[in-house]
């Protein structure tokens, strides 16, 4: 129902079919097409379109994806290296860049680990027990997915800002949340809140409670049951959730931009530095940082594809 979770679940579903299309046995009609002589092509097959239409559709799809997805990605790397490799690495070793990288890693570490713990706990409560209002609770957990990033930042400004609910109290006690690490961390935790829980809940619901019941009846304690039985069964799903959570945590821009205050060398994360450098026409430096984030995105996609395979294999075994 929410944006990313929907995306994640539908891609998982999708991968389940990938192995079938790879094998040349039992292939769908459109695949048989390729080995068939041209002359006999379209008439015999009920489930495909005439050749020119097929060509047109594929061309349109590829053109669209190239213009809107491939080119922007290429531009990032082309611009980053437009003044050569040494300029690229010089830009990355600027103190500002290094401190942004450091802050981004710190924020990701904080928000991923907290959401990891929360996600596992929430998934346990939601998937292993029956209670009223379960669907509603899942909707609440999903909520941050449907809130604009800017609003995700705004809510913390309203709580902790100078005019916010706790603003005066915080000032009196000299506690800095906004325009400091805690504020950035809070906003990041908010926007990445659902990832781990949403990756685990469907998986754990599907696995049911039988193995846990078996462990308990064999004398295992609650923690023994979790660490020895539940955790090994959900490890790939957990990794999947952590991966997506991490990608978003490192790349978050809107929410962090609102709460960070853009203090150079102190509260700039990598995406914020990309913006600042770009607005100062330091294109090479800006795209150098951007290229690191783009690499992160690409690696995330590759690992995600591998994990989805793993998850499907797990499902096949459990269906058996």
């Amino acid at each position, binding site marked *: 129902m929410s944006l990313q979770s929907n995306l994640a679940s539908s891609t998982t579903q999708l991968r389940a079919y990938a192995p079938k299309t790879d094998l040349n046995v039992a292939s769908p009609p459109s695949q048989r097409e390729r080995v068939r002589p041209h002359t006999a092509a379209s008439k015999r097959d009920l489930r495909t379109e005439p050749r020119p239409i097929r060509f047109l559709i594929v061309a349109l799809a590829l053109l669209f994806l190239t213009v809107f997805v491939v080119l922007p990605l290429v531009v990032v790397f082309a611009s980053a290296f437009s003044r050569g490799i040494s300029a690229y690495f010089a830009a990355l070793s600027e103190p500002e860049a290094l401190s942004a990288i450091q802050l981004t890693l710190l924020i990701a570490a904080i928000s991923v680990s907290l959401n990891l713990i929360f996600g596992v706990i929430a998934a346990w409560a939601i998937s292993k027990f029956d209670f009223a209002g379960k669907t509603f609770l899942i909707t609440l957990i999903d909520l941050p997915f449907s809130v604009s990033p800017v609003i995700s930042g705004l809510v913390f400004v309203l709580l902790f800002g100078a005019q916010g609910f706790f603003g005066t109290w915080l000032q009196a006690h000299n506690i800095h949340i906004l325009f400091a690490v805690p504020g950035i961390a809070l906003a990041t935790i908010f926007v990445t809140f659902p990832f781990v829980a949403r990756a685990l809940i469907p998986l754990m619901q599907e696995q049911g409670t039988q193995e846990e*019941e*078996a462990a308990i*009846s*064999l*004398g295992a304690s609650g923690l023994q049951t979790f660490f020895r039985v539940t955790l090994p069964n959900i490890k790939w799903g957990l990794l999947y959730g952590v991966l997506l959570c991490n990608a978003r945590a490192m790349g978050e821009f809107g929410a962090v931009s609102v709460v960070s205050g853009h203090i150079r060398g102190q509260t700039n994360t990598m995406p914020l530095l990309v913006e600042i450098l770009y607005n100062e026409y330091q294109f090479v430096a800006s795209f150098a940082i951007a290229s690191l984030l783009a690499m992160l995105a690409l690696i995330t996609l590759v690992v995600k594809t591998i994990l989805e395979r793993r998850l499907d294999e797990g499902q096949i*075994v*459990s269906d058996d």
Partner: protein
Amino acid sequence: MTIEVKNIVKKFGDFAALDTVSLKVGDGELLALLGPSGSGKTTLLRIIAGLDWPEAGEVTIDGEDALGRGASERHVGFVFQHYALFRHMTVFENVAFGLRVQPRAIRKDEKAIRARVKELLDLVQLDWLSDRYPSQLSGGQRQRIALARALAIEPRILLLDEPFGALDAKVRKELRQWLRSLHQEIHVTSIFVTHDQEEALEVANRVVVMDKGRIEQIGTPGEVYDNPATAFVHGFIGESIVLPVDVSDGAVRLGGRPLNVAANGAAPGASKLFVRRHDMQIGPAGSGSLEGAVRHVRSFGPIQRAEVALADSEGKTVIEIDAPRDRELQAGEIISLEPRRYRIFAAHE
């Protein structure tokens, strides 16, 4: 070990899964809980295991209150219907699990654990599978591993939920005999749940017949088959002919015509006459209290099964009877029928 269940009530919302159920299981018994789905048999088993809790009632194991303890403290071996083997562990580790999670003070050392697991795998005759994963086993093998795993903790009692439910017919028969001989060997008080009457009668030494959250009858296989206590038991176990009769003044009438059967103290009013298929005595036309036309005969093995349209009801009531093959029946023949053994239950039951 003995088990005693007293006045157990369990509800799921408005639905009474168990309605004041009481039961005593003696030491070393092999007891079957038999009933259709929704009769509450699995719920009762799970309550004894500590996997579910009743709204009211008591469960004692060897005189000790069990409801105050969680499943992990009851020392009850439970074999799940779908086995619930740990899919990420080898067969060996599955069986060893219960030994490895024991508190350090009483936990066996690795060597003793290995020896015990080996012993159990030998017992279920699957020691050669110890390095496999559950997904690599057949259904029957998984079943036996699940049993070995449950036995590893030296349970006081053994509970099996539909132990043969997920297996195909041939494997099921083999495992039935195997389970009975295993029980003779280890002699642990055991309860198993089944919806298959043949399984219950063949394996258990006592059968508890359940329906709609209540116990209908408890008895040996012979008792529940030959002396069903209720209409439900008569209908559920073995194949029965059911005739709508009316009891009044000590006479039993079918469609107004008196039958040559005694009311045996059955209450007056609309009733049902239950007769086993093979308990109908066949005679020449006019010799018995029921008469009918043979419509169709199939002969196999020692019996012939005949479809008979009863004359009293203008051919509307058709019953199936089993007769020995010493007197071949012919389609179209008019015969008379006389119930040899029968039971009468009030119609509303």
